[in-house]
């Protein structure tokens, strides 16, 4: 036995110190730790800490709660089983006689557990055979299949997505989208500066107007018309300048922000479309839609409105402070003193309101949810005469909404009067101090007037400034959610050195294929060679992994182990779109897009001629029913094809697959949801489709597969039998049982299928 094996290249996240001491004293000379898992549940599923370690010689474990270490030397028959259920993972150490031990952990540790499992298997094999452990392959994140850097335990993307709360810094990443508009942004900033400065001129002019015109007039001097004209035209000029500059600034920045919004939306959507099905499987449609729709809009409004206003306000306050100090420093201090207090108080009130408004948002979602639930299900509601109950549900949701709004309105209605009151108090202080200063002859009436004019301007801005905190947080959350999409790399990556297929023959080979959805193993060790032009029938209980196999062949997902080959080339080295153009896929639930029938048939080949479309429809036995529709091929099918029956939709999707003339055809329960009469129609259509193509057909009704050259029976993710119908029946195995079960249940159907069905020929 080789005991002095080098540990494989991946440095582990180091063992916590609390365990290190205990473990190291137990290791024999030359024994090294290969992998370890900190478990966090005991056998009664209470949270408690324990450790399982795979070394070069044995498995060591400290079960939670147990005061001792247990150890099992590697020996033949030893095996580690892994399962998970309801968020809890289980590792079981067994040998031929029974279970030796079991350990539980929350699924957050699953990645580490799988690594431990692998290390255990490698070390066990090496200990038994004497061969050194093979060098580790490139590690992939088990969740998103992105390659991991050596030594990195967790995929940074997945971790960030689930664990890191949005931070305001995320907003800076938007710079990537702002960069193309640098010039305009700079112009916008300069205009902001200029227009803010222009708005500050009028209060300044009140000072000489007061001191040089009005006060002397009260003291008996005549009004100097020339001076008045000068000041008033100054006022008018400043107003006009501020207007012009403000207009230019708002216009430029609004243009830029709309463009940034557009870039953000389209970039995100384009990226989203490139992501694999795996990504979509884990997301909710509504969620993705809001991210691309309203979140980008929220960011947009933030950039164009709130950020701009805030910048203007800050500029204004800074400039005003400078002016005030230059006029009279002491008065300036008194004026600005209440400012932080007022800002703080506004902030407090706002904070309370914000939580309230967030709640209103959520309750509002509840109200819409009731609608979204009921309206599509209106047939069921009416069929069971539950209109009253649904109305009551809606009324209740509204009542909730009302109660919450009433509560918030109490605070809300207090808000603006409070801001006004605080402003007034601030003004009061300035009045008081100002009058006192005038009485002492320190300042003139004009100075006080100017001060009052300035501060009443920016006190009112404080309210809008205080809003920036919450809108920034919201925009940051939105930006994070957008970047979550943008940072995701497709788990079905384009090859770096693509191999182009010339004429595809349609040979498909699966070699040792294994696959996991996330951490859950679904298929194992599938080996299958499908010859060009052969028709394979895939059978098995529902959930046995048939669709999963199809997903792998279509490369909607990439295999976790093994490889899929087309004409002897690994599918991972063929450009994705090029590969898929050779596959025609008909699914159980045909999806029709909003548009005409012709558009839907030509979906995979938008430049198809009318003749081609009709030929495909004829071959799919769809031509006649299409002609019965009021506008023939130009009839609109509603959203998801509501206006058509299941069988009709199915035949359109068959025509769609036929039109691209694929070398490989995949039918995933294409006829399961229709009646036998329609099925026969579809069957005829399929017979046209199958000819001369490599076909993989999955069917619930085994009778559908009578044309298949070979049948492949699957069970729990594995291929259990391969052969023709007669061979498999003679074997009396898995297929035989499936067939018998169906024959018992649907003997009428069996009768139908045992009749020879004449196949009518149609030119395709």
């Amino acid at each position, binding site marked *: 036995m080789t005991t002095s094996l080098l540990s494989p290249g991946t440095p582990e996240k180091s063992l916590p110190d609390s365990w290190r001491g205990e473990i190291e004293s137990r290791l024999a000379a030359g024994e090294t730790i290969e992998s370890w898992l900190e478990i966090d549940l005991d056998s*009664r*599923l*209470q*949270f408690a800490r324990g450790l399982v370690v795979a070394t070069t010689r044995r498995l060591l474990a400290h079960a939670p709660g147990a005061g001792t270490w247990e150890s099992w030397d590697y020996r033949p028959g030893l095996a580690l089983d892994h399962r998970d259920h309801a968020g809890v993972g289980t590792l079981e150490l067994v040998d031929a*006689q029974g279970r030796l031990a079991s350990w539980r952990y929350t699924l957050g540790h699953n990645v580490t557990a799988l690594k431990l499992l692998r290390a255990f298997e490698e070390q066990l094999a090496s200990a038994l055979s004497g061969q050194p452990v093979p060098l580790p392959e490139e590690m992939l994140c088990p969740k998103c299949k992105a390659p991991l850097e050596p030594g990195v335990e967790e995929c940074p993307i997945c971790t960030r997505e*689930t*664990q890191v709360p949005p931070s305001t810094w995320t907003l800076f990443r938007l710079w990537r989208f702002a960069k193309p508009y640098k010039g305009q942004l700079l112009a916008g900033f300069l205009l902001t500066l200029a227009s803010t400065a222009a708005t500050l001129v009028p209060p300044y002019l009140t000072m000489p107007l007061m001191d040089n015109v009005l006060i002397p007039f009260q003291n008996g001097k005549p009004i100097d018309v020339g001076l008045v004209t000068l000041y008033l035209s100054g006022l008018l000029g400043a107003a006009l300048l501020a207007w012009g500059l403000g207009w230019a600034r708002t216009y430029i920045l609004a243009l830029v922000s709309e463009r940034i919004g557009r870039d953000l939306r389209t970039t995100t959507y384009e990226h989203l479309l490139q992501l694999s099905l795996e990504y979509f499987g884990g997301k909710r449609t509504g969620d993705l839609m809001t991210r691309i729709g309203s979140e980008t809009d929220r960011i947009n409004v933030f950039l164009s409105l709130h950020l701009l206003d805030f910048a203007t306000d800050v500029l204004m306050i800074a400039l005003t402070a400078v002016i005030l100090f230059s006029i009279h420093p002491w008065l300036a201090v008194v004026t600005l003193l209440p400012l932080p207090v007022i800002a703080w108080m506004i902030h407090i009130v706002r904070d309370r309101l914000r939580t309230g408004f967030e*709640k209103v948002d959520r309750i509002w979602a509840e109200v819409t949810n009731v609608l979204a639930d009921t309206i599509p299900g209106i047939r069921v509601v009416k069929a069971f005469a539950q209109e009253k109950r649904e109305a009551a549900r809606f009324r209740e949701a509204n009542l909730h909404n009302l109660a919450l709004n009433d509560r918030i309105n109490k605070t809300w209605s207090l808000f603006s009067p409070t801001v006004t009151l605080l402003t007034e108090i601030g003004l009061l202080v300035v009045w008081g101090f100002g009058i006192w200063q005038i009485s002492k002859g320190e300042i003139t009436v004009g100075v006080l007037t100017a001060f009052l004019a300035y501060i009443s301007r920016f006190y009112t801005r404080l309210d809008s400034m205080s809003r920036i905190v919450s809108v920034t947080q919201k925009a940051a959350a939105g930006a994070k959610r957008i970047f979550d999409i943008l940072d995701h790399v497709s788990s079905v990556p384009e090859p770096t050195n693509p191999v182009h297929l010339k004429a595809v023959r349609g040979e498909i080979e699966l070699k040792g294929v294994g696959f996991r959805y996330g951490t859950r193993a679904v298929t194992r060790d599938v080996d299958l060679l499908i010859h060009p032009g052969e028709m394979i029938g895939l059978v098995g209980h529902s959930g046995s992994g048939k669709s999963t196999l199809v997903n792998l062949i279509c490369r909607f997902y990439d295999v976790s182990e093994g490889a899929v080959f087309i004409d002897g080339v690994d599918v991972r080295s063929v450009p994705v779109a090029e590969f898929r153009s050779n596959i025609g896929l008909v699914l159980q639930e045909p999806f029709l897009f909003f548009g005409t029938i012709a558009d839907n048939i030509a979906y995979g080949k938008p430049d198809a001629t009318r003749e081609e479309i009709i030929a495909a429809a004829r071959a799919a036995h769809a031509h006649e029913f299409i002609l019965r529709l009021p506008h023939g091929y130009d009839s609109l099918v509603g959203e998801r094809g509501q206006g058509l029956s299941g069988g009709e939709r199915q035949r359109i999707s068959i025509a769609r697959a036929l039109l691209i003339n694929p070398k490989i055809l995949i039918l995933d329960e294409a006829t399961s949801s229709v009646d036998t009469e329609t099925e026969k129609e579809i069957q005829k259509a399929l017979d046209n489709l199958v000819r001369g193509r490599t076909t993989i057909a999955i069917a619930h009704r085994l009778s559908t597969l009578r044309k298949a050259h070979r049948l492949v029976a699957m069970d729990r993710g594995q291929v259990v039998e391969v052969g023709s119908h007669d061979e498999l029946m003679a074997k009396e195995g898995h297929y035989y049982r499936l067939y018998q079960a169906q024959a018992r249940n649907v003997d009428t159907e069996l009768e139908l299928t045992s009749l020879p069905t004449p196949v009518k020929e149609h030119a395709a």
Partner: protein
Amino acid sequence: MSATPQLSRSPFGHLVLATADGPREVVPVRAFPIAEPERGISLVDGDGHERAWIDCLADLPAPHRQLVEEELASREFVPEIRALKEISSFATPSTWQVDTDRGPFALVLKGEEDIRRLSQTMLMIADSNGIQFLIRDLSRLDRGSRKLLDRFL
């Protein structure tokens, strides 16, 4: 179906039911794990077929009941939240330090939609790894916990 299922435990630690066609490995599954956990327990075999039905756990003879209860306890994992101690942020994803009937834990809430209201006072919270946490009675939580939770409801 026989009135009292004959149960035992295999060396591999599985629950085994004696049936007409020999012993079968089964797992107990509660039909109403939340609404009525003590009644309606199905014994399901590896293929997902129901092999026996137990109306009420209390009706079983003690040794069998213990076997079933042990098996349930080792399979079921719905920690009940007793208190919320700390929340990393009010924006999701957010990490919550909670006290449960199974000990303290840090759960990660991915989004507000993972909080499901089962009734007026009962909540089910799914964490980022798919573990379900239960809050059986909202009104019995302490004030601090309620206040924190309120921000998400």
